[in-house]
């Protein structure tokens, strides 16, 4: 399944920037069975990286226990209106996606 775009919001309060990310991904655990009783193979995001103007501000690793359509929220110091925050993920099948948002 082609993953849809991430919804990212980055808001600066002058000293800190708060980033909220909603990824669109099935996050299949590999534990579930389909109607025929066959195991559905695991398919989940493994790595996520957020950068601010090219500098990494968060590097995360996900296991299959992260919820479907993962949500992530964090804060970093600095960041001004108009700066760019970019978020990329890679899943265990090698699919990847990058989305960028302007800090508001």
């Amino acid at each position, binding site marked *: 399944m082609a993953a849809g775009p991430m919804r990212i919001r980055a808001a600066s309060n002058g000293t800190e920037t708060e980033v909220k990310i909603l990824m669109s991904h099935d996050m299949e655990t590999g534990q579930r069975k389909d109607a025929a009783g066959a195991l559905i193979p695991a398919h989940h995001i493994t790595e996520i990286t957020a950068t601010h103007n090219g500098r990494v501000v968060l590097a995360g690793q996900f296991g*299959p226990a992260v919820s479907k359509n993962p949500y992530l929220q964090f804060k970093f*110091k600095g960041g001004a209106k108009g700066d760019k925050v970019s978020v990329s993920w890679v899943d265990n099948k090698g699919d990847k996606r990058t989305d960028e948002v302007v800090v508001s």
Partner: protein
Amino acid sequence: MNSQRREALKSAGAMGLFGALVAAGLITPEMAQAAWDKTAFDAKTMDEALKALGAGKPADSKDVQINAPDIAENGAVVPVGVKSTLPGTEFIAILIEKNPSMLAASFKLPEGTAADVSTRVKMGQTSNVFAVVKAGGSFYMSTKEIKVTLGGCGG
């Protein structure tokens, strides 16, 4: 197939050299994922998971807070936030004791990033949730039990 290739080329531009190498086939997706800590995410017990994270026996700390509900109605979506007030917190991991694999997610925090991360996890059943934090070279942890009324793993 063609659109996939286009997608790969597009993201190559966004991801810089690394993406370009993947697109050029020099690094296969499997190799690119070598950075994902499979040992830690496959760990079935607390001891194994902590060992894989290099955490040893973390000390309990009140400075690590787990922000989560006491009761989660839907185990498929349990909001969990971890906040640490320890100076120099550089790593946060969320572990769920009774899940098939304990480690749910881990985060590396470069300097300047607040030790305050929230996400949502799946829980198979009522379980202790652990937050393991690395600060100043040592590991600390805190525990919270979350009761689950409807499991989120299995079908």
